[in-house]
C-alpha cells in the first residue's frame, strides 16, 4: 500500500498535465527501402492488407505488413519504376490492376507473368496537355462509385492554362473516354471521396484563393480560378463558359468608405450571385492555422475503428506535416462545414494518404520544393487510434440563428453553459486574382445564449449576426468535459456558405 501511494505521488504531476494528441492518436514512422527516396505521392489499398504507394520519383511500391502492430514486419517490393511522377494510384478490384495517374497519362499496369513487377503499361487516357512547366501536376483519384477515375490538373504556373485542360477536373470512364467535369482548378493537392462517394479536391492558397480550400467537385461547376476557362470550347458538355470573376479586390477597410450598394463584388458570396456555375469552397482550410499546402483527403469509413469521427474527412497538409479534421453538411444544396486541427507532428510533408478498413491511416510524402515542418525529406507513416476517446468537438451544425456543437464526450454543464467560455470571430478572404490574401471584413458577433443538451453531448449557441460567406471561427477555451478535461483542440473554423 505504501508503495502504491508513492507510485501515485510520482504520477500525479503527469496526470495533471493537459492531454496531447499522441495520447489518442499514435504515429509510426516506417523504415523505407534504402535504394530509393520514398517520396510518397499517392496510396491505395490492395487485397490481403497490401498497399500500393506511388512516388514523386515515378516508382510504385507494393507494401506488405504495414498494418502489423510491429513496424519491422513491413516489406517493400518495387512493382514499377520510370513513371513520370505518380500522384494518383488506384487499385481496380474488377480487373485486379493498378492504375497510376502520372504527369501526362493514366497508365494501367499489368503483371502478366506474375513475377510481382509490372510488364505492361497501357495508356488509359492522355487527353490533356503538358507544356513542360514544372507546376503542371496531375493528381489522380481512386475509382469512384461509378468506376470512373478523376484527375485534377494544375494550371501552367499559378495564373494561366497554356495547354488543354490545365485547371480542370476530368473524369475517365471505364472505357478510357474522358469527360471534362469541372473548371476553375488552380493547384490541386489531393482528391478524395466522402462517405457518400461525393468527390472533393484540395486547392492551394494563391490567385483566387486566400487560403487552401476543400472543394466539392460537382460535375458542371466552376471551382473559382478562371485561368483554365479558355478550354470551354473543347468541353461542349459543360455548357457556356462562365463569366469571369472580377480580378481586383479591396482588401481590408480601404473599400469600406465607398458606398458599394449590394456589397463588394469581389467576395465569393457576391460573385456566386453573378456567376451561376461558381461553387464556393466547402471549407476554407484557414491559412497558417490549419495548414499552408493542403493535400490528401481521407474519409473515415472504418465504422469506429479510428475513434469517434466516423464518416468525417481528414485533410493532410504538406507544409504543416499534419492532419486536420473536417465535418461537412449540406445546406441549401451546398456543401459546407468546419475544420479542426487534428494531429500534427508527421515526419515530412504529407502528400498521399489512405485509411484501411481497420481504421489505420497510412500517409506519406516529401518536403521537396516547398519545405515542411516535419523536417525529414520524405516519409511513410501510420496513424492509429489508441482506443482512448479524446474530448473534442465532434460536429458543428449551422442553424438559422447560430450553431450547434456536439462533443465526443459529455461536457461539464457548468463550464459549457458559461458564455464566457465561448468566443467567435468571423472573417472572409477577398476573391481576387492576386496571390493569397488576408483575413478581411472581420466581424465579432455576439454570442447571446448557450444551451447545453440534457445528455451533455451538445451545446446550442445563439449568435448574432451570422454572415453568409464568412468563416466563423469558434473558440471554446474554457469548456471542460464532465471529467474535467479541456478540449484537445479548442478552435474550429466553419465556412458558412449558406445560412439554413
Amino acid at each position, binding site marked *: 500500500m505504501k508503495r502504491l501511494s508513492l507510485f501515485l505521488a510520482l504520477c500525479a504531476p503527469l496526470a495533471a498535465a493537459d492531454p496531447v494528441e499522441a495520447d489518442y492518436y499514435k504515429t509510426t514512422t516506417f523504415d523505407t527501402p534504402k535504394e530509393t527516396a520514398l517520396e510518397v505521392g499517392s496510396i491505395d489499398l490492395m487485397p490481403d492488407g497490401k498497399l500500393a504507394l506511388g512516388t514523386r520519383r515515378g516508382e510504385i511500391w507494393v507494401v506488405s505488413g504495414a498494418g502489423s502492430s510491429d513496424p519491422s514486419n513491413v516489406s517493400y517490393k518495387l512493382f514499377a519504376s520510370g513513371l513520370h*511522377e505518380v500522384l494518383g494510384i488506384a487499385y481496380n478490384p474488377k480487373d485486379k490492376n493498378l492504375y497510376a495517374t502520372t504527369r*501526362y*497519362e493514366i497508365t494501367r499496369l499489368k503483371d502478366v507473368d506474375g513475377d510481382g513487377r*509490372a510488364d*505492361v*503499361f497501357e*495508356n488509359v487516357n492522355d487527353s490533356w496537355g503538358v507544356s513542360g512547366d514544372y507546376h503542371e501536376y496531375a493528381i489522380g483519384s481512386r475509382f469512384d462509385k461509378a468506376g470512373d477515375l478523376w484527375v485534377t490538373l494544375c494550371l501552367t504556373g499559378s495564373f494561366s492554362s497554356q495547354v488543354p485542360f490545365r485547371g480542370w477536373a476530368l473524369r475517365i470512364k471505364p472505357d478510357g473516354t474522358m469527360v471534362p467535369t469541372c473548371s476553375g482548378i488552380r493547384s490541386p493537392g489531393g482528391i478524395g471521396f466522402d462517405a457518400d462517394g461525393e468527390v472533393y479536391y484540395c486547392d492551394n492558397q494563391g490567385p483566387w484563393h486566400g487560403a487552401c480550400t476543400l472543394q466539392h467537385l460537382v460535375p458542371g461547376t466552376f471551382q473559382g480560378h478562371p485561368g483554365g476557362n479558355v478550354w470551354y470550347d473543347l468541353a461542349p458538355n459543360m455548357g457556356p463558359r462562365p463569366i469571369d470573376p472580377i480580378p481586383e479586390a479591396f482588401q481590408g477597410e480601404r473599400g469600406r468608405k465607398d458606398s458599394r450598394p449590394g456589397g463588394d463584388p469581389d467576395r465569393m458570396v457576391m460573385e456566386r450571385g453573378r456567376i451561376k456555375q461558381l461553387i464556393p469552397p466547402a471549407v476554407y482550410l484557414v491559412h497558417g492555422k490549419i495548414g499552408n499546402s493542403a493535400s490528401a483527403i481521407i474519409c473515415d469509413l472504418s465504422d469506429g475503428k479510428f475513434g469517434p469521427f466516423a464518416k468525417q474527412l481528414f485533410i493532410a497538409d504538406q507544409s504543416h506535416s499534419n492532419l486536420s479534421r473536417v465535418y461537412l453538411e449540406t445546406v441549401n444544396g451546398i456543401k459546407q462545414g468546419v475544420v479542426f486541427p487534428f494531429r500534427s507532428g508527421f515526419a515530412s510533408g504529407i502528400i498521399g494518404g489512405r485509411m484501411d478498413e481497420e481504421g489505420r491511416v497510412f500517409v506519406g510524402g516529401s518536403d*521537396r520544393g*516547398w519545405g515542411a515542418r516535419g523536417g525529414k525529406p520524405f516519409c511513410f507513416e501510420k496513424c492509429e487510434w489508441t482506443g482512448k476517446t479524446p474530448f473534442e468537438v465532434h460536429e458543428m451544425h449551422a442553424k438559422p440563428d447560430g450553431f450547434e456543437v456536439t462533443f465526443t464526450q459529455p461536457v461539464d454543464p457548468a463550464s459549457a453553459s458559461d458564455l464566457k467560455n465561448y468566443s467567435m470571430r468571423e472573417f472572409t478572404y477577398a476573391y481576387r486574382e492576386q496571390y493569397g490574401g488576408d483575413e478581411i471584413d472581420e466581424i465579432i458577433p455576439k454570442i447571446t445564449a448557450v444551451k447545453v443538451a440534457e445528455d451533455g453531448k451538445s451545446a446550442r449557441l445563439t449568435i448574432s449576426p451570422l454572415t453568409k460567406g464568412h468563416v466563423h471561427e469558434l473558440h471554446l477555451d474554457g469548456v471542460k468535459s464532465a471529467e474535467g478535461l479541456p478540449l484537445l483542440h479548442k478552435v474550429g473554423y466553419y465556412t458558412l456558405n449558406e445560412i439554413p
Partner: protein
Amino acid sequence: MIRSLFVLIVATAAARAVDPAAFTIKTMTAQMKYDTTELLVQPGQPVKILFENGDDLPHNLVFCQPGTDTAAMAMKQMEKPEEALKRNWLPDDPRIWAHSKMLNPHEKEELNFTAPEKAGTYPYVCTFPGHALTMRGEMKVAPAGDILHNLKFALYLGNWKRLPDFSKLKPHREGKVEDNLVQVKLDDYKNEFGVVFTGKLIAPKKGSYRFFLASDDGARILIDGQEIVNDDGIHPASNIREKGLPLEKGEHEFRLEYFQAAGHIELYAAWKGADFQITPLSKWLHPNWKGGAKKKQEFDPIPLIVKDEPVIYRNFIQGAGNRGIGIGYPGGINIAWSAESMNLALVWRGAFIDASRHWNSRGGGHQPPLGYDVIQPTGEVTPAFFVTDKPDAAWPKWEKGIRYEGFAWKGYSLDAKRFPTFRYTWHDAEVEETFTTEGDGNKPDGSPTIIRTVKVTGTMPEHAWFRIGIGSYEAKDGAFVLKGPKPFRIKAAGAQIAGQNLVIPAKAGTMTITYQWAQ
C-alpha cells in the same frame, strides 16, 4: 554536401596573400565531360592541377590562348591522322601553352604551372578525336579585388527574428577587426546576438560593382548608408543574395548588420568589380561561391545506372518533348522515345541520364542526356509517319500544346529481358516498335548499333512515308552516312534520300532500321 560536378572552383586565396591555387579535375565516366568546367585564378598565381581520368577512354587536358576555337583545333589534326597519332593526339599548335599527357583510363597526372599574367578566359579541352565538342572548360584569369579597411565591430545581445534597428540599441562590446575580414567568432556568443561591422571600402575606379551576401541567420549590407543586399530573417545560408550598384572612385562607408537567433552561425560577404573577380570580404568563403553564375541551381547528381536490364525514365528529356520516355539499354546505348510524336526522338551513347534536376526541389526543366554523341535522327518531336506525294517535303513541326492528328498512344510492354515494345495507332494502322542493341556504346571502337523493328498491321494511307533520318546523308556501302563531325550511319531496306529526308515508303509489314555510330 559534395558539389563536385560542373562547378566553378574559386581559388580560395582571393584577397589574401597569393597562395598557389589547387584544383582537381576529373573526367566523368561515359559522359565525355570534365567534372569541372570553370577555374578562377589570379594573374601569375601558381596553379596546381591534379588531373584524374576515371573514364574508360583516354583523355588529356590542353590549355589554350583566349579565343582559340578548340574544337576546330582538335579537328584539324584529323587531316593528318598518322602524324597526330604519333603526337598522341596533341595538336601541333602554338596557341597551346600548357597540357597534360594523354592519360590512359584510370591514370592521373599532376600539372604545375603559373597562371598567365594577362587577364582573360583561357579554354581547356581534350584533344582526343571526337572529344573536343563536349569535353572542355575555361580557366578565368582575373585579379582579386581589395578587402575592407579600418573594419570595426559592435556586438549586441538580443533575441530577434529579424534584424533589429541597431541604432536604437546599446552595444554590449565594440572593437577592431585586426585582419579586416568580416567574421563571427564561434568561441564567443552562440545564440541570440547581433553584430554590426563598419569599415571603409575603396572603389578603384568609377564603375559598377556587385555585392554578395549569404548568412545564417539574417544580415544586410549597406553602402554609404543605403541598403544594397538584404538577407534578413531566420534561414540557412544556402542562398547567396547579390545586387549591383554604381560607385564613384574612392572611399565608401561599408556596413554589414548580422544577427543570430539559434542554431548554425554562418556569414559570407564578397564583392566584384569590372576589373577584379569575386573577392570575399568575409573570413569564411561560401561553399558554392562561384563567380557570377549563381542563379542556376545545382544538385548532387543522381545518375541512373544501367546494369543488366534496361532502365526507363519518363520525364522531361531535352530534345524529346514533354512526353519523353528515356530508355537506357545495357551496354551504354540509350534512346528517348516520344509518346507525343510516336517516334524515336534521341539516341546517345555512354551514361544514361542524371535525374537530379527532376528529383530535387520542384523538379522543373528538361534534362539533357548524360552521355555523349547525342543524335536527334528526325528533328524535334516529329512523327515518322506522314502522308505526302513529295517525300522531300517538310514534315510537320512540333508545337507544344497541339497533338499530332491521327496518332494515338497505346503504351508499352516489357519482354522477358525487360526491353520495351512501344505501341500506337496511326489512322487505321496499328504499329509496334522494338529496339535492340549491339556493340558497346561505352567504348570508342564498340560500333554501338540500335536495331529498330517497326511492325505495321492494318491499312496505311496512300502516299504514306516513314522518315528515318534528316540531314545531309550520302549513300555509301549499302548504308546512309550522315556528313559531319560525328559519323552516324543508317541502314534500312528500301530507304531513299529525298532532299534532307531519308525515307521508306510506309506499308503494312515489318521495317528494320539500324542506327550506328560509325568510326
